[in-house]
């Protein structure tokens, strides 16, 4: 049994596997299949100041080795999260990453302020949702805006602040440096890559929103590359995600520099994916006689 525990921004995770924001709701649905306690943490559904209804359906499309989504940040609002969801999750012995978003810097600040007096462990500020017209995609694609929203949210919270980055940029390392300089305690990446599918029989895009975010195994090599570039550019921890569907994928992303790994679309293919990934990581480490998963973080030996 290898030691799978990791520490990020002073917070202890029993293992590095975290269901990604948006695929796991607030945990109830998957709890029917396995105890949440088995997970290192959970990144909760992106939550905004007020309730949002999201985009018109269809919101989901299959793609080669992946999928598109345009859910559009549907969520019940931060007050509901704090009153109805958080107390339950806090009793579950795993790290809660409250994923938050907003249309404006002010909204992000207000949401973070509301979480300040709760026992949530970490805040994951999503500056990269590609699916809403004013959902923060703009923050995530400009160094100045990313720095500004980080700076303001930083002032509003004493909790460890993870900034979730968009891959839809020319240089993700530059954005990472910008948010680090304004006080981000960690970065997580990648959010989805903007994509599109068209039904060639009708000439209509499959998604009603026309475009949506690509995730799943198809994006994995992009995620590995970006995690590696960001890990080399900043001195804060990197939480990696994007297309991870096996323990080997998780190991690879950690070698590239990730201190923990989130799992998204893979859960739709196999609802037990996070649990299997934890077991497979353990098997891999044991087979290589590596005693702690921490030893592989950033251990890639580039040519």
């Amino acid at each position, binding site marked *: 049994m290898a030691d799978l525990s990791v520490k990020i921004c002073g917070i202890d995770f029993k293992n590095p596997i975290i269901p990604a924001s948006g695929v796991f709701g607030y945990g109830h649905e998957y709890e*029917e*299949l396995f105890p949440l306690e088995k997970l290192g943490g959970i990144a909760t559904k992106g939550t905004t100041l007020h309730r949002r209804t*999201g985009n018109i359906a269809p919101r989901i499309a299959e793609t080669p080795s992946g999928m598109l989504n345009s859910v559009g940040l549907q969520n019940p609002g931060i007050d509901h999260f704090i009153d109805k969801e958080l107390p339950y999750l806090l009793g579950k012995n795993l790290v809660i990453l409250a994923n938050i978003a907003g249309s404006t810097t002010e909204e992000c600040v207000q949401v973070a302020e509301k979480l300040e007096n709760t026992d949530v462990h970490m805040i994951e500020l999503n500056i990269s949702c590609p699916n809403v017209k004013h959902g923060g995609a703009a923050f995530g694609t400009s160094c100045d805006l990313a720095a500004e929203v980080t700076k303001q949210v930083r002032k509003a919270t004493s909790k460890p602040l993870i900034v979730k980055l968009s891959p839809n940029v020319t240089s993700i390392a530059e954005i990472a440096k910008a948010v680090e300089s304004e006080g981000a305690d960690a970065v997580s990446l990648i959010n989805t890559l903007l994509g599109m599918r068209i039904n060639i029989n009708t000439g209509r895009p*499959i998604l009603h929103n026309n475009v949506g975010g690509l995730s799943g195994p198809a994006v994995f090599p992009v995620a590995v590359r970006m995690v590696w570039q960001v890990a080399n550019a900043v001195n804060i921890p990197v939480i990696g995600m994007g297309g991870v569907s096996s323990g080997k994928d998780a190991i690879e992303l950690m070698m590239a520099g990730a201190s923990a790994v989130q799992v998204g679309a893979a859960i739709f293919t196999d609802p037990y994916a996070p649990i299997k990934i934890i077991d497979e990581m353990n098997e891999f480490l044991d087979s290589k006689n590596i005693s702690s998963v921490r030893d592989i973080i950033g251990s890639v030996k580039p040519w």
Partner: protein
Amino acid sequence: MKYKQGNYIILNKSAIAREIYSFEILCPEIAEIASAGQFVHIRAEGFTLRRPISICGIDKNKGTLRIVFEVRGEGTEKISQLNKGDTIDMLAPLGHGFTVNDEFKKVVLIGGGIGTPPMLPLAEIYREKSVVISGFRNAYAVILQDDFKNTGAETILCTDDGSAGIHGFVTQPFEELAKNSGIDAVYACGPMPMLKNISKICKDNNIFCEISLEERMACGIGACLGCACCTVRNDEEYFAHVCKDGPVFNAEEVIW
């Protein structure tokens, strides 16, 4: 909600019409808790998303489920290549099914095309009390008529081109029936325009009506919010999710 995921053995496979397959699957733990109107979420090897397929038969004694599905794209094509003796990966039973009421004396079950299979478990329950109206493109696409007759239900068959049964849509015979009072409930599944018309007829005639909707979905259990459907609940607009709040909705809740 209770559901399980696992690999289950296909006991029987048959092609019951062009590109339409029927599987009988041994899954006692799922059959035990499944009810009419629910669906199974099937993994198609090599694809990221599972495919939701409605339940067409529940045999709690044998511990089996029956599904009938049409090959519509690459995912369902992959599933259709499974054979008797193979295992099938299912997450099931999912969703909110039909409301069944022992006091109903007469119910009408309406299926359009591949929306017909989920009506069979209801016919098994209501038997002689049910009238099944099913509509298909043409005679080659007709399925399940004997299965319905075997339950004791009265069947009315329609085809778009008149090559079998009544020439026309299911709404025509239904409208006739709806006018003669005495229908306690209508249950329907099929294309949206059909469901919309049936809902209207039921509303006009003050008949309880439940419809089963379809939407592209990912998780299947209400976590990802992918399969949104606009509904009204307690006079408030509510973005329901077909996988968890549905697939069966009261027709009056749905905003068309």
